[in-house]
């Protein structure tokens, strides 16, 4: 391999249009730039609640995002050695914009093309190298999966949510509690206000931990959501406005604790079963402070020899830097695709 390679990463699987430039050297790699459309756009349709999935919006944004990423990386298009793009999972109409653009660039520049799975991107959104076997927890609004990583490019899904994704549960519970958008951070902030669970005399909030005692790595969060809904509706009937405010924070606290407990327990169990040397977190919910601290605390206690890796906050949500990072490992294995053969695959499951 050349001493230094440059990879352009493109991500447009759902609402975000993102581009990034990675540069490698003998020691490893560095992200030179990473731009994500929601963070640069001037207009927000409904404050970010409605996903910007219109193909025409992706079309409008993709070239400016690529150009911006290349400019910020202080590179020229001709200095790009490899093009990497998310080919799935996601929405066909969104994915297509990314794949067609990547295909065209690869052909025009005569550079190798790499197709990346969006979940793989999240798994590899950390900068450190993994020690194998590794167990990854990818947790976001759209996905909640535990994946066994035997080596780069060797993945096996070992557990996922049977209903709501964890990030989705955060979002919906935030709505139930009237906590605003985006739900995840709102729950986190409310939960952090709780100093003691004995906030309100006579009120104790107990929430279930779905699937916790069940063997295996399947998870479930919709029952927890329904539990919050019913308990909250009861509290609304009996509490004074002042106590209801306290109860809101307490409910957020208990909910967050329940979700995190399940995520950490299942991940730890998987790490134990598969003798993992590394645990890696990825996806939007990996930015949750409590998940991060609990994962570290529990693994330090139960599996002290296992290293826990998590992405920087800005790498947790959907972005193209993780796509470029994933691509780096595909380049090492010379895993390329003929541009004319690249097709978006909305249901692409990450498998061995």
């Amino acid at each position: 391999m050349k001493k230094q390679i440059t990879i352009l990463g493109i991500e447009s699987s759902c609402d975000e249009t993102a581009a990034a430039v990675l540069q490698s050297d003998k020691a490893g790699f560095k992200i030179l730039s990473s731009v994500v459309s929601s963070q640069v756009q001037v207009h927000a349709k409904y404050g970010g609640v409605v996903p910007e999935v219109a193909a025409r919006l992706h079309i409008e944004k993709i070239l400016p995002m690529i150009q911006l990423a290349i400019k910020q990386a202080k590179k020229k298009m001709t200095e790009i050695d490899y093009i990497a793009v998310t080919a799935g999972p996601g929405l066909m109409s969104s994915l297509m914009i990314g794949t067609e653009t990547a295909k065209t660039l690869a052909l025009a520049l005569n550079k190798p093309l790499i197709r990346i799975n969006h979940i793989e991107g999240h798994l590899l959104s950390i900068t450190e190298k993994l020690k194998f076997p590794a167990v990854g927890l990818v947790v976001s609004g759209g996905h909640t999966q535990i994946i066994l990583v035997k080596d780069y490019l060797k993945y096996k899904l070992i557990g996922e949510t049977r209903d709501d994704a964890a990030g989705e549960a955060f979002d919906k519970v935030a709505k139930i509690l009237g906590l605003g958008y985006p739900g995840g951070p709102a729950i986190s902030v409310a939960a952090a206000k709780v100093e003691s669970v004995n906030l309100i005399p006579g009120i104790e909030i107990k929430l279930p931990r779905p699937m916790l005692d069940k063997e295996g790595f399947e998870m479930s969060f919709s029952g927890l959501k329904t539990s919050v809904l019913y308990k909250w509706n009861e509290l609304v009937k009996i509490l004074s406005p002042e106590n209801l405010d306290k109860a809101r924070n307490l409910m957020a606290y208990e909910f967050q604790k329940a979700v995190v407990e399940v995520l950490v327990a299942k991940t730890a169990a998987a790490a134990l079963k598969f003798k993992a040397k590394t645990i890696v977190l990825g996806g939007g919910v990996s930015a949750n402070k409590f998940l991060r601290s609990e994962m570290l605390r529990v693994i330090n206690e139960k599996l002290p020899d296992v290293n826990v890796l998590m992405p920087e906050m800005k790498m947790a949500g959907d972005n193209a830097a993780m796509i470029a990072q994933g691509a780096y490992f595909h380049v090492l294995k010379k895993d390329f695709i003929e541009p004319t053969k690249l097709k978006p695959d909305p249901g692409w499951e990450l498998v061995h």
Partner: protein
Amino acid sequence: MKLITKKESETIKLGEKFGKTLKGGEVVLLVGDLGAGKTTFVKGVAKSLGVTRVVNSPTFVLMKIYEIKNKEIKNLVHIDTYRGLDIGDLKNIGAVEYFKRKDCVSFVEWGESLEEYLKKEQINFKKIVIKNISENEREFIL
């Protein structure tokens, strides 16, 4: 027709029964609050159609398509408009194309906002309303 389910497994069974009545081309709007059992119902439908993949909530991914082998129905399309998708958005993501296909069946969670459009376009649809009666009980109006 009104039916009561007392737990999740009964909702799944109801979905299975409903799934067996599908011939292809159906568009079903699932109307009900958070926790009503919309996704759970679709799990049952998927099971009856022979889908082996896990059917989980499409709230954030917006649309999921499950391939069905060896039947007149080739795809189960599962859509969720909870995040505020309107008919324009559904057209943008190609969902409306699926509504018109006889070899697909589509289930739209929170789909009440589509009724007017579907009526105008003369696309036949069914509406299933689910009411939360208590923490575990649901009333299905099919």
